[in-house]
């Protein structure tokens, strides 16, 4: 219909440029229209007879529009656009041959539907105008002669890599356009910017034809699982699970964490309406070593795809004991029980050293290592930075020198350590912290007046606290909430100011009838973390509950793990993907710092990777030109299995700056299980970013026309006449006829 009225397909109008081909300038056209309008106005005004002003105005408008339209047609309107020269250009037709294309809908696989479309319609139509080059793709693109050999067997879909491969070939042939038939189930998370910009540079439009439904009628899919890459022994970890479901709104399902096929944690969740939802499940990291967890939702009856219910995540549980220094400015019960929470349970992850000022000139030390803190609280960064966490109790701010205050801030900011401030008569606002560098790092604003009170007060979890592994005493959330509701009151508390942007309040505290104030608040600061626990009375959780109750030690062990788990060493190796799903490419990034945690620019950084078969490879990492102290490299994981990568950084090729171990895993045959529905958003974005169009299989018959409009390949610029569009003639007749009918009706013919 569009073409019947407008003579050309819509794509011509969207991509072409409108021009007027008359030799006469446009201003003459405008002037003539104005003169005609004025003349007609004068004429109608003189001769309107018995017509009312409004009717005369309508007559004037119709006549003016008619003359303007005729003048416009005389100025020779046209569309200027680049079109591929017939039979001189190549169109790449790319067919997805990954496993997800083997999924059947309405009794026919996606691949079969694509083949039918190609062989019955698309290829014959395209061949009339272009040379057609056929590709199949999955992990990568490759030339094929015909579609008969396709089996939907590739374990991965990498649209970006495949397009890049074809774009690279475009240098040797006049590539006019790419036509891609796929379900869009890309396993790399999308098409990278480099490939898009390469295609845009070549002006090659990518037209996509989507196969498969936008979603399954009944399916629960794990979209993503976020877990920490590293953990300390026996830590409680949080897995944040993104779930997408269709057809199971309101259903109760089991969110499970498995290790070696044995469930180690589970909780029942209710699926919300047809939309993505995020849930958390907590589990224990276990003993040292690399742990592989399967995290997801137990399949439920009637699911169309049960292969996308679990994802694998790798957590490396380190052997290292993280060092925490606790300084207390006066003997307090909290000091005793915090130490007991760690020491009584022989915590394998925390090494706690304490110093408490017992008198004005005496400090009592309980240190983990001989000679530790021999000169009191550290005065040099390399001494303080030897710890991973720092707890500051009831210590006046001015007990620390200005240099020490700055060093404490740097401890979190630069060194990446965890700092926890406790309340007390010499702490926070009561201790004069308000105008110190330490106040800046705190997650809460410090009140200007003293607020520490020795009144018993109730504690409560916030919504964030209900989700946090720090405050999780029971795996099941409802049991955990119930336990906190019965928690004994804390012995004291300090009223704090408002949270700063980015801070998260996990617990509140309030006396009966008082407004709640933040009790436990945390935030990231620089490379580290800072928290405020606005009480020193959690010891009542120990003294007011049965001696076998572990509430207090569990809470403090978890709080200390939060402080130190992510505290980096001098050398930190990382990768964006610890599990390579049907992928081989592992980018490596290593951050190298010295004892003061300043970036080291001239280090030699080498990673030795032990393969699953026991052999090893070595990767030399290169300095990142954009970031001092950062070294990058790439590794190809040839075989599926678990890899262990040990990175060593040296200065001058000799002195070892530090080392770090990273584990990662390559898994085959899983990627295509996820995102098996059509990823229409991705395909539409790809087409619009490259100047192409998205089609459904049913609407693809328009495609050959649109393919011809392209600025890539060998093109010719054509001016297509518009003056003879049927719509214009219909308009002329319509205006004139309408005016005549009105005149008849009004009796002025």
């Amino acid at each position, binding site marked *: 219909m569009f073409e019947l009225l407008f003579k050309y397909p819509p794509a011509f109008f969207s991509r072409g440029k409108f021009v007027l081909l008359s030799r006469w300038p446009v201003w003459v056209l405008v002037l003539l229209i104005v003169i005609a309008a004025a003349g007609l106005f004068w004429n109608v005004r003189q001769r309107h007879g018995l017509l009312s002003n409004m009717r005369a105005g309508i007559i004037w408008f119709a006549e003016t529009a008619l003359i303007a339209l005729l003048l416009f047609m005389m100025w020779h309107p046209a569309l200027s656009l680049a079109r591929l020269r017939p039979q001189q250009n190549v169109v790449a037709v790319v067919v997805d041959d990954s496993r997800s294309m083997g999924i059947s809908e309405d009794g026919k696989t996606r691949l079969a539907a694509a083949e039918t479309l190609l062989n019955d319609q698309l290829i014959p139509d395209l061949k009339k105008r272009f040379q057609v080059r056929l590709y199949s793709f999955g992990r990568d693109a490759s030339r094929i002669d015909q579609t008969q050999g396709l089996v939907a067997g590739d374990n991965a879909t990498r649209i970006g890599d495949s397009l890049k491969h074809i774009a690279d070939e475009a240098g040797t042939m006049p590539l006019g356009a790419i036509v891609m038939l796929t379900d869009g189930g890309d396993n790399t998370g999308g098409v990278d910017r480099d490939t898009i910009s390469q295609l845009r540079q070549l002006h090659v439009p990518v037209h996509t034809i989507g196969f498969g439904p936008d979603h399954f009628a009944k399916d629960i899919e794990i979209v993503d699982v976020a877990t920490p890459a590293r953990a300390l022994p026996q830590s409680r970890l949080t897995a944040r699970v993104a779930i997408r479901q269709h057809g199971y709104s309101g259903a109760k399902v089991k969110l499970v964490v498995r290790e070696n096929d044995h469930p180690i944690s589970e909780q029942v969740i209710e699926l919300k309406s047809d939309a993505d939802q995020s849930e958390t499940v907590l589990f224990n990291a276990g003993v040292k070593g690399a742990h592989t967890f399967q995290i997801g939702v137990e399949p439920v009856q009637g699911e169309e795809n049960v292969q996308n219910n679990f994802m694998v995540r790798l957590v490396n549980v380190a052997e290292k004991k993280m060092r925490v220094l606790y300084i207390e*400015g006066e*003997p307090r019960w909290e000091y005793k029980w915090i130490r007991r929470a760690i020491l009584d349970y022989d915590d394998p992850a925390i090494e706690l050293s304490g110093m408490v000022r*017992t008198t004005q000139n005496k400090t*009592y030390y309980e240190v983990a290592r001989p000679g530790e803190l021999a000169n009191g609280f550290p005065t040099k960064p390399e001494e303080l930075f030897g710890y991973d966490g720092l707890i500051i109790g009831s210590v006046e701010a001015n007990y620390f020198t200005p240099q020490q205050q700055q060093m404490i801030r740097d401890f979190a900011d630069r060194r990446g350590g965890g700092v926890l401030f406790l309340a007390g008569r010499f702490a926070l606002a009561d201790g004069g912290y308000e105008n110190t560098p330490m106040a800046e790092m705190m997650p809460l604003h410090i009140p200007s007046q003293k607020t520490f009170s*020795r009144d018993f007060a109730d504690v409560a979890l916030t919504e964030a606290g209900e989700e946090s592994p720090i405050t999780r005493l029971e795996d099941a959330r409802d049991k955990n909430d119930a336990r906190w509701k019965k928690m004994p009151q804390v012995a004291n508390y300090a009223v704090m100011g408002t949270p700063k942007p980015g801070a998260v309040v996990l617990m509140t505290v309030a006396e009966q009838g008082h407004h709640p104030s933040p009790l436990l608040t945390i935030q990231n600061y620089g490379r580290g973390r800072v928290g405020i626990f606005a009480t020193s009375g959690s*010891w*009542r959780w*120990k003294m007011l*509950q049965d*001696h076998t109750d572990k509430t207090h030690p569990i809470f403090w062990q978890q709080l200390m793990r939060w402080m130190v788990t992510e505290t980096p060493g001098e050398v930190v190796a990382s990768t964006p993907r610890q599990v390579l799903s049907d992928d081989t490419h592992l980018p490596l990034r290593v951050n190298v710092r010295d004892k003061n945690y300043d970036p080291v620019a001239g280090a030699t950084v080498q990673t030795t990777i032990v393969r699953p078969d026991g052999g090893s490879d070595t990767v030399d990492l290169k300095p990142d030109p954009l970031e001092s102290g950062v070294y990058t490299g790439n590794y190809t994981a040839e075989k599926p299995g678990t890899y262990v990568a040990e990175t060593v950084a040296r200065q001058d090729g000799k002195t070892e700056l530090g080392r770090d171990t990273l584990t990662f895993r390559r898994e085959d045959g899983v990627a295509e299980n996820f995102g098996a529905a059509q990823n229409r958003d991705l395909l539409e974005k790809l087409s619009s970013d490259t100047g192409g169009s998205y089609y459904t299989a049913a609407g693809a018959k328009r495609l050959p026309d649109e393919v011809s409009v392209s600025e890539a390949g060998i093109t010719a610029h054509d001016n297509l006449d518009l003056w003879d569009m049927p719509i214009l003639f219909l308009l002329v007749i319509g205006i004139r006829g309408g005016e005549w009918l009105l005149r008849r009706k009004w009796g002025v013919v």
Partner: protein
Amino acid sequence: MRFRTAIVAALLCCGFSALLAFQAQFKEYPGEEDNPAPVPKDAFEKTEWTFARLRYPSGRYSGYDGLRGSWPTDFPKADRQLLQGVRRLTRIHTRSTEQVIDLVNNPDEIFNWPWVYAVEVGHWDLTDQQCKLMREYLLRGGFLMVDDFHGTFEWDVFTQSMSRIFPDRPIVELPNADPIFHTVYDLDQRVQVPGLQYLYSGRIYEKDGTVPHWRAIYDDDGRVMVAMCFNQDDGDAWEHADNPQYEAKYTSQAYRLGINYVVYAMSH
């Protein structure tokens, strides 16, 4: 009628819970004070620590203390004099007045006071319920200092109750190297601290308790739960610190020992 009863019961429950929500405050015990002392102005201050005196029953062993029992021996002057010393010599936030922990009438209050002192335990006579409570208190982390009991008979009386608190834990001599003797002061050289009676009798010991002992019961992690000052009278040394006849060396050691025990309890 039933509805009204329910409302009244609910209000009573709320009121009772509200009472439980507060820590007991300083309270005087007129008629039971062994050596009265003035009540300081800041008697009700809320602090981190104060001297918590155990009000235990003497029962069969009330002895010369008669109906009053032996728990308030030296009370409250000894308590308040030690408190002055702790305030002056340490950074512990300390109240000026003692707290009596009534094991008979309000036993659960003990859990709010992790350090308690019991005097003349050669006369205490705990019920099974009280023994169970003390055991639970100590296992949760509470600290008990016992003092001013002398000789074989009083030791036996003491252990009759103590062995019911901890039938499974031995009483041992504290070695000099134990941190309890070194938290603030190094107390390797210790003397027998006598009661006031030595000024009249000339003997620094009482009954057949000629040799002083610093004994203890440890928890599973090697920390002192119960510290026993046997054949000594630190309470008298605190009480008579302002008595010119009472020798300073005894007072000095009693203060140092008391401070060490308190700081130890707050750090171990």
